[in-house]
């Protein structure tokens, strides 16, 4: 096979894998909507979809992580959300993936630490937006959302590492 053909084939495989990850994220999103974590405090989420982004980052595929993350946020907003929820999820999602990608450069941290940083960033950004568009009182949720970011981020990072072990052959 010529190198051009094999290049094309790799790209097709990559597109398929990204599409599969997007679907998995949408299912994760549905699972999360069934678990009433928002009763703890508004904005508390497991962030299962984030395991896919972390998984791709472990695989050093920053572009892929960024693409899948953005696509799944847009898709889930289109299917289940509103323009209002998109403002929250897209801003927080994009900023948190950039911060996660940067913190992967810190050698002392494992993917678990990176995932914690991503989750906490995500929650802080959401609170900042909520302070602007809902009310300044939202700032009182900051402590609980930081703690929940540490807990869920850690768990999701661990999950991403397990997934990477299982999936690294196809990535």
């Amino acid at each position, binding site marked *: 096979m010529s190198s051009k053909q094999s290049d094309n084939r790799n790209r097709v495989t990559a597109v398929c894998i990204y599409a599969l990850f997007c679907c998995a994220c949408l299912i994760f999103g549905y699972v999360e909507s069934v678990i009433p974590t928002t*009763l703890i405090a508004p904005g508390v989420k497991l962030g299962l979809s984030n395991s896919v982004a972390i998984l791709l980052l472990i695989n050093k595929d920053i572009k892929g992580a960024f693409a899948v993350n953005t696509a799944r946020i847009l898709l889930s907003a289109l299917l289940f959300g509103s323009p209002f929820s998109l403002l929250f999820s897209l801003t927080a999602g994009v900023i948190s993936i950039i911060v996660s990608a940067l913190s992967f450069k810190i050698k002392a941290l*494992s993917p678990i630490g990176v995932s914690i940083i991503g989750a906490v960033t995500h929650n802080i950004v959401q609170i900042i937006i909520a302070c602007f568009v809902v009310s*300044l009182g939202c700032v009182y949720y900051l*402590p*609980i959302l930081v703690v929940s970011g*540490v807990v869920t981020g850690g768990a999701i990072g661990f999950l991403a590492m397990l997934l990477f072990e299982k999936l690294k052959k196809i990535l």
Partner: protein
Amino acid sequence: MKKLKKADIILAMCLIIAAFALFITFYLFKTSGKKVIVRQNNKTVYSGLLSNDNQINLKHNTVVIKDNKAYMKCADCKNQICVKTGKISKSGETVVCLPNKVIIEIE
């Protein structure tokens, strides 16, 4: 596989300590609110002073404002979380009835 590292634990501890410090600061500096706002389906259905004793009867919920405190007296929702939340009086505090989309907010 790269397992949990020391830096991860330090990071997590620092964040939790920071969150705890924030919580205490907020608790100390929280001021008593002045205004009560009740919203249903994102529409304001009541807005008044906290010092103004009142009872707001909504279709599925009853909000009571008494002795500078506001609370959900009763609700027909299944989980009853709103009723169990108790009384609120500090600015930024909320009582949320998610099933009926009713929010009591202190400003």
